C-alpha cells in the first residue's frame, strides 16, 4: 500500500476564530479520505488583509514566518480560496528580496491548495459519501475563480454527494461584496452588492448556500441571518463531511 498522503492544515485567521466547525469538518473529512492531517500551531493569518490594504512590508513579514512554519509540509490545505491565492500567487513576489526565503515561498506555492482542489487534484477523488439531503447552490468566490481559475472542483464534489441537488446560482461568478476591509470602508456599497447576491440565492430555492471562502461566508451568512432567511451559508467541507446542522 502506498504511504498515506500527509497534509498540513492552514486554518486561516477567520477559520480559526469564527468558523472552527469548518476546520473540524475538514480534519474529519480528510482523515476519512486517508489523509494524515497535522496543524502547525504557530500559524495566525496569511497576511492578505495587510497586503490588500497596501501594507506590503508588513504582509511580507507575516509571509516570511508562514513559509518557514510550513516549510516541511508535504501538502498544505486551505479552506479559503483567497488565502490559498495569497500563498500561491503573492508570497513569492513579497519575498523576492531574500533569495533563500523566495525559494521556500516558491516551493510552498506549489504545495499549497484550496480544499476542493486538494481533494480532486491531489487525492484524485471526485465522489464522496456523505449524509446531506436537499437542494444547494454554489457561490464562486473571486479569488478561487479568477485568481486560481477554479470553478469545477467544488461543483464536481457537490454533485458527487448522493443526496445533493446542485442548482446553479444566477450570477454565481459575481462578487458578494466582501472584499476584506472594503466591507467596512464602504459598508453601504458592500451591502448593496450583497443584497443582489442574496436575492439570486433566494431565487434558487436552495436550502444551503455553499462557498469555499471564509470571507464570503461571513458576508453572505451575515446577510442571510440578518434578513431572517431560511437559507444557510455553509462551507463545502461541512457538506462533504455531513456536518451541516439543522
Amino acid at each position, binding site marked *: 500500500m502506498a504511504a498515506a498522503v500527509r497534509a498540513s492544515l492552514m486554518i486561516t485567521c477567520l477559520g480559526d476564530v469564527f468558523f472552527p*466547525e469548518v476546520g473540524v469538518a475538514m480534519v474529519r473529512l480528510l482523515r476519512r479520505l486517508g489523509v494524515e492531517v497535522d*496543524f502547525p500551531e504557530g500559524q495566525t493569518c496569511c497576511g492578505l488583509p495587510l497586503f490588500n490594504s497596501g501594507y506590503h512590508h508588513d504582509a511580507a513579514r507575516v509571509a516570511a514566518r508562514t513559509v518557514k512554519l510550513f516549510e516541511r509540509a508535504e501538502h498544505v490545505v486551505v479552506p479559503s480560496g483567497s488565502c490559498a491565492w495569497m500563498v500561491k500567487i503573492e508570497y513569492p513576489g513579497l519575498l523576492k528580496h531574500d533569495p533563500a526565503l523566495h525559494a521556500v515561498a516558491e516551493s510552498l506555492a506549489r504545495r499549497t491548495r484550496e480544499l476542493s482542489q486538494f481533494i480532486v487534484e491531489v487525492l484524485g477523488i471526485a465522489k464522496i459519501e456523505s449524509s446531506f439531503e436537499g437542494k444547494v447552490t454554489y457561490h464562486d468566490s473571486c479569488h478561487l475563480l479568477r485568481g486560481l481559475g477554479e470553478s469545477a472542483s467544488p461543483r464536481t464534489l457537490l454533485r458527487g454527494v448522493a443526496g445533493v441537488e446542485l442548482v446553479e446560482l444566477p450570477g454565481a461568478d459575481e462578487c458578494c461584496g466582501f472584499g476584506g476591509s472594503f466591507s467596512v470602508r464602504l459598508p453601504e456599497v458592500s451591502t448593496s452588492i450583497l443584497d443582489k447576491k442574496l436575492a439570486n440565492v433566494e431565487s434558487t430555492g436552495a436550502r444551503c448556500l455553499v462557498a469555499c471562502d471564509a470571507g464570503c461566508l461571513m458576508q453572505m451568512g451575515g446577510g442571510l441571518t440578518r434578513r431572517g432567511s431560511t437559507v444557510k451559508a455553509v462551507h463545502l467541507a461541512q457538506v462533504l463531511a455531513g456536518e451541516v446542522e439543522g
Partner: protein
Amino acid sequence: MSDAALRTPFPQRAGAALKDAFLQEALTIATTKFIDLRKEAFAGFPQGEALRDRARAIKEATLQHLHVHLERLADNVERLGGHVHWATTAEEAREMVLRICRDRGVRMAVKSKSMATEEIDLNEALEHAGVVPVETDLGEYIIQLAREKPSHIIAPAIHKTKGQVAELFSRELGGEFPADPEVLTAVARRALREKFLQADMGITGANFAVADTGTVVLVTNEGNGRMVTSLPRIHVALMGVEKVIPSMSDLVVFLAILARSATGQKLSSYTTLVRGPRRAGELEGPEEFHLILLDNGRSRQIASTLREALYCLRCGACLNVCPVYRQIGGHAYGYTYPGPIGILLTAMLKGNESVRDLAHASSLCGACKDVCPVRIDIPRMLVELREHLDREKIAPWTERVAFKTLGRLLRSPAAFRLSAAAARWLQKPFVREGRLRALPLVFGKWTRTRDLPPVAARTFRERWEELR
C-alpha cells in the same frame, strides 16, 4: 465634477448614488446588457484570446519607444499637410484649441465623443471664450443639455432612463416627446443637423493614431464622427500620447477586440480613418487639420506603477462588470474617468492625493482584469496604488497605525491568541441568539446591515488538542 462637489467625501457620494432609484434602474439595465453582449461576442470568436495577448504586446512594445512612434506620427501628419501640437498639460491643450479658434474666427464647434476633451474640460473653456461647443454623440448631447458630465467612458448618459431623457428634451428643445428612444433620436438628429452645417470647427478625440501612415482613427456608431471630421472647415483631433500605434497591421488587431469588448459588436458601425486635411481634387474634408498630442501626466508613468494603465483602450468593459461601478455609477467617482480603470487614470492625471478614498473603491474581485481587452491587471495596480498611499503617508494616520498594529499581532501567535480571547470576553454583552447584531465603533459599520459571527467559544486551535 466641480471642486465643491468633490468636497463631499467619496463614501457619501457613493451613498447618495445608492439611494437614487433612477440611477439604479438605468445602471442595472445598461450594464447587464453590455455584459451579455460582450460575452456573446467573444464566445463566437475563438481567436479573440490570442488577439488580446497580441494587442497587449503591441501596447507594451510601443510604450518602450513612445517618443519614436510619436515623432514618426507627427512627421507623417505634417507631410499630409496637417499641423501637430504637443501639449504637456491640460491647460496647454486648451490654449492650443482656443488659439486656433481665435486665429480662424471660429464661433461654433461640433464635437464627436471624446474623453480626452472631457479630461481637459474643453467645453467650459470654449464657452468661456465665446465659442459654442455642440456635442453630437447622442449620449454626449443628452448630458450637455442636462449640464452634466459623462458617467461612463463609452455611454456618457448611461445613468439616465429614457423617461428622464424625454423630459429633458421636452424641456430644453421645446415640445412634448414620448419616452421612445427612436423618437428621441430623431429629435436630436433634427436639432443637430443644423449645427453641423453652421459649425466652423469639428473636434474629435482619437481611438488610435497610426504612426506609419499619419492616420487618426475614430471608432463610432452614430455617423456623427464622420460629419464632424468632414463638414466644418477645420478639424482638431485631441489624443492622449499613449494612443499611438506603429502600423496599420496593428490597427487590425485592436479593431478586432475593441468593439467586441465595448458593445459586443464585431466592428463599430463606423471606423473613420482621417489622414490630414482635404487634398486637391477631394470632394470632402476640412481645409485645415490639427492634431494635439496630450501628455498631461502620462509619460511620467511609463516607468512607474501605473504604466499598464497606459494600455487602456477606453472600451469601458471594466466598468460594466465592476460590482462597485454597477452600484454607484460614474458620477460618484468624481473625476473624468470612472470605474476601476478610472481610479488608476485619476491617480495618473490628478496625483495620488486625489485617490486616497477612491483607491479603496474596489473589492478586488478581478472581474475587470478578466474582461480587459489588453489584460490590464487592475486589481494588482490598485493594491500597488494603496501601497503608495501608505508609503507616501497619504492614507490617514489612524489607518496606518491600525494596520501596523495588526501586522505586529499577526506576527505573534501569542498576541493573536490573546486578542481572540479578549474579543470573546468583550463581545459578551453584544451576543444575541448566537450572533452579533449591533456592535459599537468601527465594527458597527459591519453590523448595521449584517450579522457577525461571534468569536467561537473555542477557537479551532483550542479544539485541535482533542482532534489529534
